[in-house]
């Protein structure tokens, strides 16, 4: 009985912590009614647990743990933000398009279109104020005066008869 009590006392804490196997539990439960010492020891363990648990439970009821949430929020804030390349890559990974890699020809098309259209979009048509109406004027017979009026939208090329003019026919 003593050997049995000694072996049970080793199992008693496991039984109390509900960590005993079915076989060990049935062994302890068969022993406890017949062993006052072990029974008393189990009661001490239960009393000890109650003595520890009661104030902890009371404190838990009153505590809202704000510091825990603060710590979590701080952790979220401190978490490293992904770079735009990582975000883009993750977007591509999430996209069903990436599975077929169809975005490759799509991006290629977009680049080609941008290259093709950009000269047209940014082509600057010169205004008349930037460019002269008369590109050149030459005469071996007349002296020439050019007058341009932007307001009247008229350009005058006036020919003066010089010393070497075209007479006598004119």
């Amino acid at each position, binding site marked *: 009985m003593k050997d049995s009590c000694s072996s049970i006392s080793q199992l008693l804490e496991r039984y109390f912590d509900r960590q005993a196997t079915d076989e060990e539990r049935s062994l302890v439960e068969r022993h406890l009614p017949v062993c006052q010492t072990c029974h008393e020891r189990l009661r001490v363990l239960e009393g000890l647990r109650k003595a520890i648990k009661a104030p902890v439970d009371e404190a838990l009821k009153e505590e809202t743990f704000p510091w825990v949430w603060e710590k979590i929020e701080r952790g979220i804030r401190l978490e490293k933000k992904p770079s735009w390349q990582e975000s883009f890559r993750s977007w591509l990974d999430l996209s*069903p398009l990436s599975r077929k890699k*169809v975005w490759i*020809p799509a991006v290629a098309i977009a680049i080609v279109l941008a290259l093709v259209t950009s000269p047209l979009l940014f082509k600057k048509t010169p205004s008349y104020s930037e*460019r002269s*109406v008369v590109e050149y004027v*030459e005469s071996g*017979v007349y002296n020439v005066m050019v007058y341009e009026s932007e307001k009247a939208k008229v350009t005058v090329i006036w*020919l003066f*008869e010089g010393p070497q003019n075209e007479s006598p*026919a004119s």
Partner: protein
Amino acid sequence: MALRGTAKRISGFIKKLALFLFPVFILSLALPSMAPAQVQTRLRVIEASNVGSTIDPSLRDLHGQLGSLFRYTSYRLLRDERLNLSSNQPASIPVHEGRSIEITQVGLQANLVELRVRIRRDGTDLLNTQVRLSPGRTVLIGGPKHGEGVVILALSANF
């Protein structure tokens, strides 16, 4: 499975879209070169003098410009020619006293035509010039004596 089907459909749509868009953009590139090849040019030969005070009714649109630029009292229309000029195809109009005016369209942009104007007599250039005209703009070439006054050429283009 559903995702794979969606991706396949999207891939097919993009391929079709690309097939449609490429010709459209190639066409849009070609559009500037498909601008109207012909330009309607109007050439008016005017005699300006101080004999009388007659303004030809067909010069009414030019009256303001002529009046603000010159001090002639009379403007008489000698000739009014409308020419459809093709690129690099010179058009020659005989005018007074053995002279002729040769006009050639040498360039055309969206709102600008480049014209080369040569006034010739007996195969000799009296004047050689190149001008850029936009719709509504007039180039006046004047000075040579004619009768009691001078001759003025009014050149404009519509396109």
